[in-house]
């Protein structure tokens, strides 16, 4: 009998994916209205590593470190957060089609974020907190609406999610009509998923810590999630503290969704598609699925955002639209191939 997963295989897989991510980041740094050659980029990176940033040309430093890099970091944070929360929801709800977007969790977070933006503009921490609360409340509501005769029914659950999403979107549109024209366009962009608004300096550490804490908390339950995906009752008989694990994943996945939505709006397909691709490539063991989904999600959003900046240049597209254009057909393909 072969070992299903060894630490060695886990680390090598993650390392390989990190190399791909690094490549994607380099391309994203290079491509833009001001093209930067790879050699310049390499030299500048070398300078950063050796702490000689003062030697860099100031306009390059501005473009690379003040414009492009923060946006790339945002893409990485959002991509990792959404994929891991999607993978978590899929195990928790025993539904391979679950994802924060489909379940309405993203819309709930968006509503929370908008309420905070309207009611308390300019107070930094309130928006992500309110988005988190919106996400938590939505998933709780969808969970209870998705049950029939005390059992979680996967079709009912997805329908409940879709209906919750459309209901919440209607509320969001109501709130948006109270805004002025200029704010409204920004808001509409944000709703489709957009990374062009840079993260406030004061919030960066909140996001980094939030991401690591959320992903880390879900990862501690990875071995348990494998069994919960087999069935809650069976997991319980195999020694899993089902209630505790579900609570941990539920809170962490909502936290990750709330964080992502509060900065980037409702980006779809990442949480659905990336875990599926990783399952397809590396198997459905959650011990390897969580870290690969985190890195894979980061890669997907970095690439999509680079495309969003460049395909219609100088006009920028919302990254959510790019992901949906590529994501929907790819997902249909995976769906038919895997579950037909």
């Amino acid at each position, binding site marked *: 009998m*072969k070992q*299903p997963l060894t630490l060695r295989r886990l680390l090598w897989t993650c390392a390989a994916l990190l190399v791909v991510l690094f490549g994607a980041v380099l391309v994203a740094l290079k491509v833009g209205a001001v093209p930067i050659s790879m050699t310049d980029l390499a030299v500048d990176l070398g300078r950063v590593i050796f702490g000689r940033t003062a030697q860099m040309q100031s306009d390059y430093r501005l473009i690379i470190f003040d414009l492009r890099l923060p946006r790339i970091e945002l893409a990485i944070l959002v991509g990792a957060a959404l994929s891991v929360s999607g993978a978590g929801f899929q195990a928790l709800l025993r539904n391979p089609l679950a994802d924060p977007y489909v379940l309405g969790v993203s819309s709930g977070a968006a509503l929370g974020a908008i309420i905070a933006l309207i009611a308390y503009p300019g107070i930094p921490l309130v928006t992500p907190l309110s988005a988190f609360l919106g996400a938590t409340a939505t998933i709780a509501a969808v969970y209870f609406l998705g049950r029939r005769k005390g059992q979680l029914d996967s079709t009912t659950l997805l329908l409940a999610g879709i209906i919750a999403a459309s209901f919440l979107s209607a509320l969001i549109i109501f709130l948006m009509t109270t805004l002025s024209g200029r704010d409204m366009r920004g808001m509409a962009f944000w709703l489709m998923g957009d990374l062009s608004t840079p993260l406030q300096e004061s919030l960066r550490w909140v996001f980094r810590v939030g991401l690591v804490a959320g992903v880390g908390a879900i990862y501690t339950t990875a071995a348990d999630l494998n069994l919960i*995906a*087999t069935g809650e009752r*069976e997991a319980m008989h195999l020694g*899993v*503290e089902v209630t505790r694990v579900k609570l941990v994943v539920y809170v962490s996945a909502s936290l990750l969704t709330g964080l992502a939505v509060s900065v980037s709006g409702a980006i779809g397909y990442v949480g659905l598609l990336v875990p599926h691709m990783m399952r397809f490539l590396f198997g459905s063991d959650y011990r390897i699925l969580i870290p690969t989904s985190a890195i894979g999600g980061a890669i997907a959003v970095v690439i999509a955002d680079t495309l969003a900046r460049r395909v219609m240049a100088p006009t920028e597209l919302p990254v959510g639209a790019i992901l949906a254009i590529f994501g929907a057909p790819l997902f249909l393909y995976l769906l038919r191939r895997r579950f037909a």
Partner: protein
Amino acid sequence: MSSGQNNVVVAMPPGKQPAWEATVRLNVEQASYAYHSRGNAAPVFTLAATSFTARQREIVTILGPNASGKSTLLKLIAGTLEPLSGRVELEGFETSRLSPRTRAQRIAMVHQESPLLFPTRASEYVLQGRHPHGRGLRFETGEDLKIAEEALAQVGATHLRDRWMHEVSGGEKQRVILARALAQQPILLLLDEPTLHLDIGAQVELLERLRHLASENRYTVVVVTHELSLAAEFADQVVLMHHGKCLRTGTPAEVYRRDLLEQVFEAPLDVEMGPEGRPRVHVRGARPPAES
């Protein structure tokens, strides 16, 4: 109460039964339960106080028609329900008070299969049984692999190792599920209607295997079933359930009384005594087999 089982079928040389053979491993003492639909409404279903004991290598069958309280009793034994009154003890520990992890190290449950969310290979499925014995991310050790391999061999399913669980037949799946339970290395093996989706050949094979495992691995086995004939053939002790009450416990010969079975199963039945004190049950109207 159990009436001094002597484990006649166990392959132990007579007169060489060690002392532990006689000690009670599972003690169900006046255990009762009640389901409420909501808060303080009258209970929708009650399980009246039930008692029996079981030793190692013993197969206990909880027998009864649908909705007789069999599964509730099994959940009380498994410790997933806490008895309303009375107690269920496994080697002196109340099963409902054990942590899920400790419980899973001692008690393995074989359910009717539930659908899998993602495709899983039989070997990975069996390795899940090692979960309660690991920590953290539980990277499988060489020992885990060895135990899982042995478990597959014990149920005669080594050849299924690399097959997908959704591609094997019902009988094969049941064997792999049983192998996962064995990989837990429990002392108490519980099975909930294990023969439900099996044809008669696979049913007999499963029960033969359980008998063998009980003696080989020193398990105490508790099987919930409504299969009268199979219970008669394989049980050391029968707990007969009806409308949430335990009507009688004892050897098949003691429990299989015609009036009692007819009352419980609400069907005209004939009971005759076969060899080795194992009763045979026929539905009246159908001709008994010619061999007697």
